């Protein structure tokens, strides 16, 4: 095999692990150890392209032609710097989430580890594929796995959440499929690069329709405001570890699809494809983003449950990213890539903390968690750092990315947008501080449980990793931003 075929390993190995895990379980061996170890192996593989590109001069994008057919006939996987930047993050979240959410003892109504394997295969596939219909197939795999992970606790609330989540996800997929078919009718191709090449000769109305349908479907999946109501409900009944994986992995993968479509068809970064010039889509995206920022952060203010608060805060964050994306400049897009990667790490870190707290207290109400952090210095520090980063205060990586976003937005002339993004952060200070205050001081500190539960140790590991990334990332913010910029410039077809 050649190096260029590397991306397919990230899809084929997790898929291969599903039957292997089944046979392991039938042989009465420990599936758990096997599954965690192999997911860890996949995560290490996911680090390889980034490390090789930065340290050993590997030239990205790696282009894996499935079956040897080119983009006009078959499917081409494209591991570009954008994918290389996000793959390590999503795969690390998957292995940590699988280890933390493992239901100890009780019989789960749903096969647990195969779903994480399939989630890994689906999200890796969606991140690396350059074929729109293939992306649709991977989206559906992700949808099925992630809502089953929402339901695995098996009570009525979990199934209710899963049903709501699935309905919303499928409406989004249907939009996306309509859009893909419209683009196929207009250009006769399914590969994004070929579609972009053939745009000049295609019927413009059909292209615009297909483009807006895909963007609308992605907005449903990202829970942008008019389509947002599924998300808090979908995450409330879920185990917080699954909610963390959904916020971190699924949303990042969908964001990659959004970026590819916007860059290819939306005309980010230049007058070559002038869809942004002739259609009102930047205005619409700006409007949706602004409403999302306002609604997301202010609804987070009135939530009494930690998971719902985090879910609404995600809506606000993606609204801010949409505001920056709607400017259609490459620099703002690079800032969005940076912020998207950070958001995945930070949000899933907090969800994992929430998972540990909810396992101990049996509730995720903020009042029910009072005093949880009081005698846990490590958790307290990590939680404070992650919350600081989500608000966007120094010395954290969240500050760096939000600052980059605001600077680029102001540079492109969007003062009002910058004020909106900043205002969202101001609201975020209030609700995070309130939650932190309750979790530290209110109520009597209870006796600490023993740390015999391995899940608690994994949670601490995850928190250390997340907080470490947050602090180290602040120091190396310029470097990460440079990687994000080169990712966007490669996406635009330019040199690395």
């Amino acid at each position, binding site marked *: *095999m*050649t190096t260029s*075929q590397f991306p*397919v390993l990230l*899809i*084929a190995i997790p*898929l*291969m692990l*599903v*039957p*292997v895990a*089944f*046979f392991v379980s*039938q042989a009465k061996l420990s599936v758990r150890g096997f599954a965690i170890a192999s997911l860890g192996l996949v995560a290490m593989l996911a680090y390889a392209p980034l490390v090789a590109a930065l340290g050993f001069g590997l030239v990205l994008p790696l282009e*894996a*032609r*499935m*079956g*040897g*057919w080119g983009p*006009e*006939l*078959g*499917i081409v996987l494209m591991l570009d710097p954008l994918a290389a930047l996000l793959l390590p993050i999503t795969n690390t979240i998957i292995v940590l989430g699988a280890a933390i959410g493992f239901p100890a003892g009780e019989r*789960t*109504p*749903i*096969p647990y580890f*195969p*779903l994480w394997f*399939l989630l890994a*295969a*689906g999200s890796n*596939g969606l991140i690396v594929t350059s074929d729109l*219909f*293939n992306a649709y*197939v*991977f989206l*559906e*795999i992700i949808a*099925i*796995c992630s809502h*089953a992970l929402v339901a695995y606790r098996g009570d009525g609330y979990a199934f209710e959440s899963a049903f709501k989540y699935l309905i919303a996800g499928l409406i989004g997929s249907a939009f996306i499929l309509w859009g893909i078919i*419209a683009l*196929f*009718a*207009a*250009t*006769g*191709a399914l590969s994004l690069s070929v579609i972009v090449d*053939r745009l000049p*000769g*295609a*019927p*413009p*109305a*059909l292209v*615009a*329709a297909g483009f807006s349908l895909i963007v609308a479907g992605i907005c449903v999946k990202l829970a942008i405001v008019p389509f947002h109501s599924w998300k808090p409900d979908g995450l409330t009944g879920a185990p917080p570890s699954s909610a963390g994986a959904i916020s971190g992995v699924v949303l990042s993968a969908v964001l990659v699809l959004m970026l590819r479509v916007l860059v290819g068809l939306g005309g980010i970064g230049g007058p070559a494809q002038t869809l942004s010039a002739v259609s009102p889509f930047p205005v619409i995206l700006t409007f949706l983003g602004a409403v999302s920022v306002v609604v997301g952060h202010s609804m987070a203010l009135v939530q009494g449950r930690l998971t719902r608060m985090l879910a609404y805060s995600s809506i606000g964050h993606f609204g801010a990213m949409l505001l920056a994306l709607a400017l259609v400049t490459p620099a703002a897009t690079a800032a969005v890539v940076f912020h998207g990667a950070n958001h995945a790490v930070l949000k899933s870190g907090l969800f994992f903390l929430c998972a540990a707290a909810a396992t101990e207290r049996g509730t995720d109400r903020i009042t029910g968690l009072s005093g949880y952090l009081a005698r846990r210095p490590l958790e307290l520090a990590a939680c404070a750092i992650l919350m600081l980063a989500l608000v966007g205060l120094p010395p954290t990586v969240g500050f760096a990315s939000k600052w980059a976003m605001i600077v680029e937005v102001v540079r492109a002339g969007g003062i009002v947008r910058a004020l909106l993004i900043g205002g969202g952060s101001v609201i975020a200070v209030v609700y995070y501080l309130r939650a932190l205050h309750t979790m530290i001081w209110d109520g009597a500190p209870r006796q600490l449980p023993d740390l015999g539960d391995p899940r608690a140790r994994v949670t601490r590991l995850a928190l250390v990793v997340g907080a470490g990334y947050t602090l180290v990332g602040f120091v190396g913010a310029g470097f990460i931003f440079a990687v994000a910029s080169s990712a966007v410039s490669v996406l635009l077809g330019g040199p690395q």
Partner: protein
Amino acid sequence: MRRTLALLISGSIVALGVTTLMLTGTLSDAIRPVDYTLRTVRDTGAINAVTAILFDYRALDTLGEATVIFAASSVLAFLAPRSSASMLSVRLSMLILYGIAFLLPFIMVFGFGTIVFGHVSPGGGFTGGVMLSSSVVIFAVVYSVGGQQSYVLPILVKKYVENAAMFVFVSLGFIGLFSGGAYLANALTGIPLGEPGSLLSGGLIPLLNIATGFKVGMGLALIIISLFAE
């Protein structure tokens, strides 16, 4: 209130769609998609273009959709309660019991035939797999009356077959990776494509067909029987 809103939204969807249609006109000026039909035989050795696209040109999509079936079936198999078995409370007449017993082998043979001849005639792993699953389901419906759980295959056997089929599919892809330079490669691996139109043609396509057929057959049977048990 909600009805008005719904009328507004769906009305505007229809209006926008029809406007796009009128602006586009007939699709005659749109770019035609690439025609696989004429190059299929040369490239893959299979004469059924749809099968060739599904199992060679766009085989990754097929792997993905087989995975979707796999995920759905495993989730549903776990959801279904173990206890409830009887689907019908009435006793079926002798005529039906013996008639089905007579028909079932034919259904299964037809299903197998559709899978195996998928690259030279209409059919393929998916259609044949659906036929296989229908035979399993018919058996379960007809012969599990009266509370005895005599499904044609225990759930565990179905899961074994399904997992083995998935393993085979992914492994067949790796053959292409190691000997042909591309995952799921067919002609590139050097496997002889055979004479187009004969049973032993199409390289890896028949093998992928068989793997998919078993996977789809067992997966759909699991899904439907689990839904019965609900």
